[in-house]
């Protein structure tokens, strides 16, 4: 095929990029080579628009074994144990085919984790849909949820936490982010860097089919009216084969056969082989006729660009081939030596002994374009919302409306579709502020949560970025864990749009400040640009996935009230910040003003002090205050238990709604037994923590004195009915 302008354009490369390719090659590429450049140089693989900004993120710390740049991040949790984790987006495929898109998203992120020698121990997800009224939402929601469950349940890894949000900004572009966590021995982590010459390059796993060709390029292009044409690139996941692949890889990893291992993710065989060679500063030569194929007459182009799932590339130590093959035979998986490492620093592709492609590795990796895209600072909203100008509403109506809303209703109809208990180490599952997963056979555990707040980030990307990190930190603290590191998935619109690029740059700046201040480094992550349609970009939606450590798991804590007549303590100052709150959004559809600002010093002090209280067994239950403010947080602590609260209205109350629905940051609600109050107050005072004693628990009723009283069973019912009303009968 002649490489015309159209062919180049179809590969998502612009004319300048194409001329750079010609310069690097010192000739015209053929179609195979063009395809390979297109895969490696697209946003998804090259991070060409984001790299400059990502460099700002803090990635180091005593606890960090491996930061960004490998398949997943690795942190040290002591005793030769390491936690391997990462989050990744699968937004575009999930919009096109929700079940398979979401399922293969889970499959992909799991491979990233077990590639590094870790046995996956937990899955999380962050899913964002359009407004519930949008005609596509129901189908997408049901498809995505069953796809996530379908894959995770089948492979037998518990899905333990996540977040589900609805906002019209995602009407035409949903977000599906999946996170996986694995456990490895610190001295047995595997990396993708190739080493040594003439080593066997081995293909293992499923056969290669024609699926997902151009998938990686698709992930980096906006949707338009012609999205339909891109449809056949969706892949079907095969969790059963992935389970076999996982067990086989983990079995092979027990001895010292592997030099380097890399999953075939986006851009399949191309990116995996280039990555291994590039990191090892070597060349790789592949004999493509050896590649196990699912269909007849597959071409080298198709083999190199296929995104068939459930495949891996391994570089083996000499003489280990036979033993390795035995393991893969046992698991009924393909195992084929398809090439070798070379000293040419080139990717050489042969098909039946004819050289079909020959590209310097550096041209594909280190010399891939990097852009300093134009970006503009967000213009900040000046206006404060004047409550007096809004229609009056009763406290009761406001609270019930929020509790019954799509975003704040109970999500157990989702989480019950996930096996949360398999592996028998799930100490706290979905519903808690963070999940707790015990390290198998030990008495320590990790905590984990994913968080985002697109409304905050839209209004002021910088404080939004700061806030999500803090919210995540708070969720980990709230189950008694010491936060240690995060992964992040940055879902944004079109980076060629300077406003979007500005949102990106500023969110990262915010994330950086919080992570730095809290010693909460970023060890892995993923960027998803081009979320939007026809020039309408989604609200900036960075998602943070955090890990915390519980050194001694004695009495795990959660947010549910435990006793009658306990004292309720509110930690942190309440100013009554309502702009960008759920209250204004749900009740008045008002999205004006700035989001609440985080004071990092208070955040850190409050969190560390709360942790001290928990570690001294002084706290019965605890919940951080996030979207919905104090009232919603209190309701969440009560619903599903036998205990409600009796809250006194504060004396210096300026406005009831500001106090109860304001979203000021760095706050926690603690349930303290009366006889421990003195001790608790002593510690709080010693640490200079601002706190208020706001009421007590009581049986059966949720009560704000003089304002509102309801049976908690009633609240629970209201909180649980959204999905049934929404869904009716589904397929």
């Amino acid at each position: 095929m002649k490489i015309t302008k159209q062919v180049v354009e179809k590969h998502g490369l612009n004319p300048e990029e194409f001329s750079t390719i010609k310069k690097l090659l010192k000739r015209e590429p053929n179609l195979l080579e063009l395809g390979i450049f297109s895969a490696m140089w697209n946003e998804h693989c090259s991070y060409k628009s984001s790299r400059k900004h990502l460099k700002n993120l803090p990635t180091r710390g005593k606890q960090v074994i491996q930061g960004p740049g490998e398949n997943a991040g690795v942190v040290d949790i002591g005793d030769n144990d390491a936690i391997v984790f990462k989050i990744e987006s699968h937004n575009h495929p999930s919009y096109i085919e929700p079940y398979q898109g979401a399922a293969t998203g889970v499959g992909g992120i799991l491979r990233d984790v077990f590639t590094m020698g870790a046995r996956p121990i937990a899955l999380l997800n962050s899913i964002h849909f359009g407004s519930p009224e949008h005609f596509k939402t129901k189908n997408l929601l049901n498809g995505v949820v069953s796809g996530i469950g379908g894959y995770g349940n089948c492979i037998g890894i518990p899905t333990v936490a996540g977040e589900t949000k609805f906002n019209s900004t995602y009407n035409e572009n949903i977000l599906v982010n999946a996170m996986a966590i694995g456990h490895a021995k610190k001295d047995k982590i595997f990396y993708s860097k190739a080493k040594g010459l003439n080593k066997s390059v081995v293909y293992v796993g499923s056969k290669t089919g024609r699926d997902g060709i151009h998938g990686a390029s698709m992930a980096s292009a906006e949707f338009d009216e012609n999205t339909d044409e891109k449809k056949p690139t969706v892949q079907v996941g095969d969790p059963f084969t992935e389970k076999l692949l996982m067990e086989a890889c983990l079995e092979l990893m027990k001895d010292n056969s592997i030099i380097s291992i890399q999953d075939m993710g986006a851009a399949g065989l191309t990116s995996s082989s280039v990555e291994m060679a590039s990191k090892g500063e070597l060349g790789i030569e592949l004999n493509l006729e050896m590649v196990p194929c699912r269909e007849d007459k597959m071409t080298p182009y198709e083999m190199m660009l296929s995104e068939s799932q459930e495949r891996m590339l391994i570089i083996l130590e000499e003489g280990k081939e036979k033993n390795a093959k035995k393991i893969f035979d046992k698991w009924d998986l393909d195992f084929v030596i398809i090439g070798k490492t070379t000293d040419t620093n080139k990717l050489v592709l042969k098909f039946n002994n004819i050289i079909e492609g020959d590209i310097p590795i550096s041209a594909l990796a280190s010399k891939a374009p990097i852009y300093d895209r134009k970006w503009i600072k967000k213009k900040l909203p000046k206006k404060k919302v004047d409550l007096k100008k809004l229609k009056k509403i009763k406290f009761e109506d406001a609270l019930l409306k929020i509790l019954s809303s799509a975003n704040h209703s109970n999500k157990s109809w989702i989480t019950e579709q996930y096996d949360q208990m398999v592996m028998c180490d799930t100490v706290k599952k979905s519903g808690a502020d963070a999940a707790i997963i015990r390290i198998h056979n030990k008495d320590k555990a990790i905590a984990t949560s994913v968080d985002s707040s697109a409304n905050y980030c839209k209004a002021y990307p910088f404080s939004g970025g700061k806030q999500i990190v803090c919210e995540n930190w708070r969720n980990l603290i709230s189950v008694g864990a010491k936060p240690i590191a995060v992964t992040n998935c940055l879902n944004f619109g079109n980076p060629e749009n300077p406003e979007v690029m500005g949102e990106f740059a500023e969110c990262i700046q915010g994330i950086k400040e919080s992570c730095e201040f809290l010693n909460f480094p970023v060890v892995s992550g993923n960027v998803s640009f081009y979320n939007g349609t026809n020039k309408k970009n989604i609200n900036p939606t960075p998602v943070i996935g955090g890990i915390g450590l519980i050194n001694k798991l004695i009495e795990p804590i959660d947010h549910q009230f435990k006793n009658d007549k306990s004292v309720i303590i509110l930690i942190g100052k309440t100013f009554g910040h309502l702009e960008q709150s759920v209250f204004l959004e749900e009740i008045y559809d008002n999205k004006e003003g700035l989001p609440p600002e985080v004071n990092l010093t208070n955040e850190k002090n409050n969190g560390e002090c709360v942790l001290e209280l928990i570690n001294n067994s002084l706290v019965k239950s605890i919940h951080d205050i996030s979207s919905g403010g104090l009232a919603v947080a209190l309701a969440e602590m009560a619903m599903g238990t036998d205990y409600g609260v009796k809250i006194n209205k504060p004396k210096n109350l300026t406005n009831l709604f500001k106090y109860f629905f304001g979203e000021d940051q760095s706050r926690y609600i603690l349930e303290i037994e009366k006889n421990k109050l003195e001790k608790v107050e002593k510690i709080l005072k010693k640490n200079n923590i601002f706190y208020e004693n706001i009421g007590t628990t009581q049986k059966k009723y949720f009560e704000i004195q003089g304002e509102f009283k309801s049976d908690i069973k009633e609240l629970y019912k209201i909180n649980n009915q959204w999905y049934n009303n929404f869904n009716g009968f589904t397929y």
Partner: protein
Amino acid sequence: MNSSVIVFPGSNCDRDVAVALEKLQFKNQMVWHKETKLPKSDLIVIPGGFSYGDYLRSGAIAGKSLIVSEVIKAADSGRLVLGICNGFQVLTETGLLKGALLRNNNLKFINRDINIKVLNNNSKFSGNYKKNQILKMNIAHNEGNYFTNQEHLKELIDENLIAFKYCSKDGDVNEDSNPNGSLQNIAGIFNSKKNILGMMPHPERMIDNLISNTDGINLFTSLLK
């Protein structure tokens, strides 16, 4: 007591049940499905999971594997066989237990704590429970909707072969306490000789208060008597 846990490709509760067995003093061995001989064991467990991905029908393909013909022989000779979740599905597919497990009636995977009632405690598997005792267990399945023909149902009832039924917290057996549409709320059954038990709930998940509760322990300890 010696036990064996059969491992199929796609089994994923094999480790969980092995942990439970060992914790409760069984001498356990894992048996890979390609093996043609069973080790000497008093109890054979077919664990939960998604053998062969649950492709075709859950349990169908595992039901055709080599090792299963050995399990059938062992069962016929009176050895104890326990099928949990996918294991129950495998047992019905092999015919060791009658009936079939259909899709849950809401067509969704269900993972939830539920209650079951011990209907028959006069068996090797349930001797340590009290009759009509209410247990809290965890279910996690797509196909737990037990179905059988009228004739067999009558046999199950007449011969007291229903081991467990789904019930409410207070022991009510009714539609509201039926999570998956199972016939008569059936959660587990015996074969006529009561040496085989198939059940959808996961007793191995209920042996540790830190994770859940300890309602599953008596099932394993009953066997030790």
